[in-house]
């Protein structure tokens, strides 16, 4: 366990450093933010003042050093565009994105796991083939186009659901969320569906593959030979065996769902981190992009850590740090 923690700590530091370096260098090479921020008719003096104020006159390594030092104190720079600390900007948008991501993951698991389980238990049947083909279709649909089609059909065609923005929010248990109001939920349905579809396909395929791999194993046959019911075999023996890998993958996917929200948020004008980042890229708002990447990296590492711990809890054979 100690080894595991030390290793993780070192990895986290290394990855964050690497990402910060890559991000910083990458962003430095793009355009000159001063040019974009200033009106076209700005004087040379105004331009110099802006460059000075933004610290753009310093050599690149000095800028990086300042950037790192500030990052360690939680200051990831101030947005050129909004003139607010970029970390504040991102954290403001975070709840909306998280809400979207969790809804999508929820849909994917609730629909995907039973479908995958059924398909895995009845391989080769008509329904199995339909589910499998459907799941291939699911991950073949380009996410953005599928979003457009959802809007075309349900907003424009049928007029059932709103196509853009986040609806009214309310408070549940002190958390401000769309789930509190009907309007909020209505606004959430299409983007959540859009984001869920890809992961739904993944959950189906993963569950099916795991079930198919587990069912022919000797211990399932031995459980049958003991005379226990099929329900208990599938519900306890098989389910517990495949839980660890499935939970791991789904957990990892939470990060990817948050990242993928970039596209969904652009299409449905959802005011989350993803939309912010696309806007910031287009406006060359360097501090926000940098802060976003660092926040996302940190989040990924935390998610991985939690998933690893969860895996240990679910599978008795795994002991962290090779202490078995």
């Amino acid at each position: 366990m100690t080894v595991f923690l030390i290793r993780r700590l070192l990895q986290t530091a290394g990855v964050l450093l690497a990402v910060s370096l890559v991000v910083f260098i990458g962003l430095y090479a793009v355009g000159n933010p001063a040019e974009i921020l200033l009106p076209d008719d700005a004087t040379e003096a105004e331009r110099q003042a802006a460059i000075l104020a933004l610290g753009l006159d310093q050599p690149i390594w000095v800028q990086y050093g300042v950037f790192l030092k500030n990052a360690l104190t939680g200051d990831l720079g101030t947005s050129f565009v909004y003139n607010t600390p970029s970390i504040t900007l991102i954290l403001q948008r975070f709840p909306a994105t998280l809400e979207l991501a969790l809804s999508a993951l929820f849909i994917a698991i609730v629909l995907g796991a039973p479908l995958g389980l059924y398909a895995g238990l009845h391989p080769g049947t008509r329904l199995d083939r339909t589910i499998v083909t459907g799941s291939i279709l699911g991950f073949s649909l380009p996410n953005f186009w599928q979003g457009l089609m959802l809007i075309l059909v349900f907003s424009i065609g049928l007029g059932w659901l709103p196509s853009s923005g986040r609806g009214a929010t309310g408070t549940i248990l002190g958390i401000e969320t769309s789930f509190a109001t009907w309007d909020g939920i209505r606004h959430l349905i299409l983007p959540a569906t859009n984001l869920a579809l890809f992961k739904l396909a993944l959950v189906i395929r993963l569950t099916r593959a795991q079930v198919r791999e587990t069912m022919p194993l000797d211990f399932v046959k031995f459980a049958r030979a003991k005379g226990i019911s099929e329900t208990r075999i599938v519900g306890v023996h098989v389910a517990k065996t495949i839980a660890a890998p499935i939970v791991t993958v789904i957990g990892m996917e939470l990060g990817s769902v948050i990242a993928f929200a970039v596209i969904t948020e652009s299409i449905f004008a959802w005011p989350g981190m993803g939309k912010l980042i696309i806007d910031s890229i287009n406006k060359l708002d360097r501090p926000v992009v940098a802060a976003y990447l660092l926040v996302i990296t940190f989040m990924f590492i935390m998610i991985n850590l939690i998933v690893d711990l969860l895996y240990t809890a679910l599978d008795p054979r795994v002991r962290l740090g090779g202490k078995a």
Partner: protein
Amino acid sequence: MNVPHVALRDVSKIFTRKPDFAERLAIRLGLPKPPVLRAVDGVSLEVNHGEALGLVGESGCGKSTLGRIVAGVHGKSGGEFRFEGKEEAGWTAEDARRARLDIQMIFQDPMSSLNPRKRIADIIGEAPVVHGMVARADRETAVAELMQEVGLDPGYARRFPHQFSGGQRQRIGIARALAVQPKFLVCDEAVAALDVSIQAQVLNLFMDLRERRGLTYLFISHDLGVIEHLTDRVAIMYLGRIVEVGPTPEIFRKPAHPYTQALLDEAPRVGRGRRVYVPLKGELPSPLAPPPGCRFHTRCPHVMPVCKTTAPDLKPVAPGRIAACHLNDTTEQEE
């Protein structure tokens, strides 16, 4: 004849995982070091020209690792390896090549020991052509002759391994080894995966080859019946060490080590009828943490206090026989 074909002195093989940075840090903080697996622990053994030496032991005793060291598939961690009297450290490139090709290996698993994507002709014919023993133009003839020698129809040379049965695949493996004209075969459980009737065919083939080519064998097996039938001398291993060596008939008649005794008692043999088993007690200790003193003391029916502290040395117990057991000490002291 006086110089052994292969001689090992105090050979050991240690498997460790190099600790990464985090683990080194943890060790510095006072955590235990990662376990070290001494698969082979100070083994000395000589195999003479033309003899068939058996190597017996249970799973995890290091017999396969020892075989691979002899065949040059694994390197050793320590000790001396002499090939025809010459120590490995003093080999020229030509010596090394000769030693490597002279000793060939026959593997256990007929499924995984043949490259599934190569045709039989390529499997058998590749090495001799690479080493210039056979001209490329003569490859086909050479392959056909080898296939014939091991009892395969040369007409099958264009086929792939999956088109053969287990016994036939084992013959292909034998032909592959023979292709570089070895004088020494290391057979690692070479018939363990085969059905009894097929096993008999392959054992006969080994005996024929020995006669025809004057081969030296290191025959590794857990099957005492096979060992008794095929070998002249036998060495018994337990947890990385050799506990007894001697001529096969004598050891089978009167083993000098309690472990050998237990193995012989417990191997079921046809024709003994129904009998009540009095098995050896206890489990095989983990090779990661072998017991101190005599490694067999945790299971030995004759265990004495000295066995728990002092490891017995291999000592002569009869002409041509050595064994590592404190029981033999006492008789010596009485003399």
